[in-house]
């Protein structure tokens, strides 16, 4: 890899960090979302405050945490609170601007499945972790970013199990249920950025990464993906973004691949 080359993960992290511009708070998990948030703090959004599901606000970790409950997130944090407070007052209270969620499946309307593969709940083909906090995050956070690599196994027309609501059958259904959050905003993949039709809430191709074609993207999506009227090209990571990721945020390259 030359200096100017970059991995798919690095591209996803850089794009996610740019989507965090303007947010006051991010609800963040470990791994790629964690690095994206910390890149945003060093580039697009120095004032971004991180909120961890484990009950930590304003963490200043001295090392890269393996889990959201890592003790390094506690030492030196601005506030540590019971999980009840976190879910009731921060998340449900409307204080989370952006949350990043992953899933085993995501469908045409941004609904997420992290519960089972297969359609028989009692006898699943694969038992996945389940919701954790994802369902309430999807309902209450102002906007949701998904960070997921393209693949027909993942991008399915309809999720096997709806763990966390996106737009359900479309924006109208979500709005009718009066959910506090606005729902999914973008899906950041390894080849393109997808967004959601402002009318229908259907996922669509919004921005291509350098060297990627519309067909490349469609090959990783399990339905006939529509293309936004103004298809953008997404800028690659800048040398400065790459430097911060490689030297400061993930010096051992744990999440580079």
């Amino acid at each position: 890899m030359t200096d100017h080359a970059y991995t798919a993960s690095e591209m996803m992290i850089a794009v996610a960090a740019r989507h965090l511009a303007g947010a006051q708070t991010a609800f963040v998990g470990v791994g790629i979302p964690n690095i994206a948030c910390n890149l945003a703090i060093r580039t697009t959004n120095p004032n971004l405050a991180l909120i961890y599901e484990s009950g930590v606000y304003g963490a200043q970790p001295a090392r890269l945490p393996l889990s959201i409950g890592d003790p390094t997130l506690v030492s030196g944090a601005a506030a540590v609170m019971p999980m009840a407070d976190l879910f009731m007052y921060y998340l449900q209270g409307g204080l989370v601007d952006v949350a990043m969620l992953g899933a085993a499946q995501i469908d045409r309307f941004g609904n997420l499945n992290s519960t089972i593969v297969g359609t028989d709940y009692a006898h699943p083909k694969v038992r996945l972790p389940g919701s954790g906090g994802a369902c309430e995050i999807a309902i209450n956070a102002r906007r949701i970013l998904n960070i997921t690599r393209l693949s027909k196994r993942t991008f399915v027309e309809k999720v096997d199990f709806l763990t966390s609501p996106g737009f359900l059958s479309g924006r109208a259904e979500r709005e009718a249920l009066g959910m506090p959050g606005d729902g999914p905003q973008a899906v950041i993949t390894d080849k393109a950025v997808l967004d959601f039709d402002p009318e229908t809430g259907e996922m669509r191709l919004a921005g291509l990464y350098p060297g990627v074609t519309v067909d490349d993207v469609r090959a990783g999506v399990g339905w006939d993906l529509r293309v936004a009227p103004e298809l953008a090209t997404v800028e690659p990571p800048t040398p400065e973004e790459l430097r911060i990721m490689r030297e400061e945020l993930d010096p051992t390259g744990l999440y580079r691949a």
Partner: protein
Amino acid sequence: MNKIISMKEAIQEFVRDGATLAIEGFTGLICFAAAHEIIRQGRRDLTLCRMTPDLIYDQMVAAGTARKLIFSYLGNPGVGSLYAIRRAVEQGIPAPLEIEEYTHFGMIGRYIAGAARLPFFPLRSNTGSDLPAHNPAIRTVQSPYADGEVISVVPPLNPDVAILHAPRCDASGNTQVWGLVGMQKEVAFAADKVIVVVEEVVDERIIRSDPNRTLIPGLIVDAIVVEPYGAHPSYVQGYYDRDNAFYLEWGELSKDIEATNRWLEEWVYGVPDRAAYLKKLGEETLARLRPGQAPSEPVNYGVYA
């Protein structure tokens, strides 16, 4: 962004005529400094929320700032009545005062529901009492589970502004409280705007050395006012004692409307700000209220690098 402003600025900017305001604090941490500045600035038609209106709202009602009171215990704790509020409720002096009354737990439930954006909060109270008949906001819900129990519920309360006194915060407003924490946290999360009034602003390093003690995150703090002794005659644990002598004195003088007005004239209108109030109060009184040292034992958070 600098959040630290003067009390004058804080009241000017955040407390408008007609606002719904909560200056909370259970027995301690009651921000009289803010109340006095609100009186001086001549605010009117406020809806005042507090579990225990205490002397602070007795004074604000006497000064004519309030249109309505939302509360759960209308007494001078350990002493007796709140006479100014009684005059307003019983005789419409200086002006009629609308009241909306709950139990303590009802007020707590309202703040929790407000903070957590819940449409209601369920609680085992009110049943059998005459209160729901006089307050249509207290309703019931039937449990959807086997017993089908009917339980009392209260609606959310979201003040426009909360003013909360605390011992210390950092420049971002990360606020730590020890001693009676009352409902400070829930009110802060329930309010649209939050003013934190502290005895001292400390280095961020001190706050971050003990993150479990942070009760109110800077995230929801709109303004910080530094006002030592700003809770007198109530108290701040470890900083000064409750001025029980004054609570007893008010219990007497407030029986008389003229004496009440003279007190307001002398101690509120007659001083420009808290610093002048403290000077007038005198070092002897402040010294009398200063407690001895009883430090907490430190705990180790650990370095995880």
